[in-house]
């Protein structure tokens, strides 16, 4: 290892320092409980129909795939 490579960890530690306090300050269970109680997101049937239609188009016209990917 290059001598200056060996000094990098020390410099890093001096510049950033370890996390001073990694202890949790409060109980997160109430937030977890709220998350568990949140109703699952349900997609309406027409969203599924639209997705199926797009998929069908891509199967029937595979040449359109690059054009669709270009949009992303």
């Amino acid at each position, binding site marked *: *290892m*290059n001598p*200056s*490579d060996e*000094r*990098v*960890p020390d*410099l*890093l*530690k*001096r*510049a*950033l*320092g*370890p*996390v*001073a306090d*990694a*202890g*949790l*300050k409060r*109980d*997160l*269970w109430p*937030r*977890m409980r709220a*998350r*568990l109680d949140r109703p699952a997101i349900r997609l309406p049937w027409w969203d599924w129909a639209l997705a199926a239609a797009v998929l069908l188009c891509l199967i029937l016209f595979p040449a359109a795939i690059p054009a669709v990917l270009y949009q992303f």
Partner: protein
Amino acid sequence: MELLEEFARGDAEAFEALFRQFQGEVYGWIVRIVRDPGAAEDLTVETFWRVYRARSRFDPRRGFGPWARRIATNLALDHLSTRRNETSLEDGFQPPCSPPDPALAADVREKVAAAFTRLPVKLRAAATLAMIEETPYGEIADALGISIGTVKSRVFRAVRLLRGDLQRMGVEP
């Protein structure tokens, strides 16, 4: 063991007991990677949400802690990747988490922090845990799901990239 089996069967009280037992450990691990207490709390809840959803795949013989830590690590890496795309380099570190050496010049500190933020996320996580937090390589390997050799390789590559970046910014390590 009984508690773990009850959790795997979907028992809500067993999940709550495990949550209370492991939330501090999971949070402590995440905050060392992301270095942001607020984000670490959010990610802790998200970790346990994923743990809860995947409970049917949980194998009680393999222990809850390592499994939760693996999920937490993946979420923390995703968070770093997202934040890397969203924030500027100067926003890379949260001051309350990192008391730096006062003898080190402020501009050097900023350049080191900036160079560190530019590291690829996987290298940054390995370097944070190994070089700053001084976590044993075996623990890092378990959490990242890679071999100890790969951890060492990532740390080595991180050091090389950091040295090059710092030299380009006029900082000689």
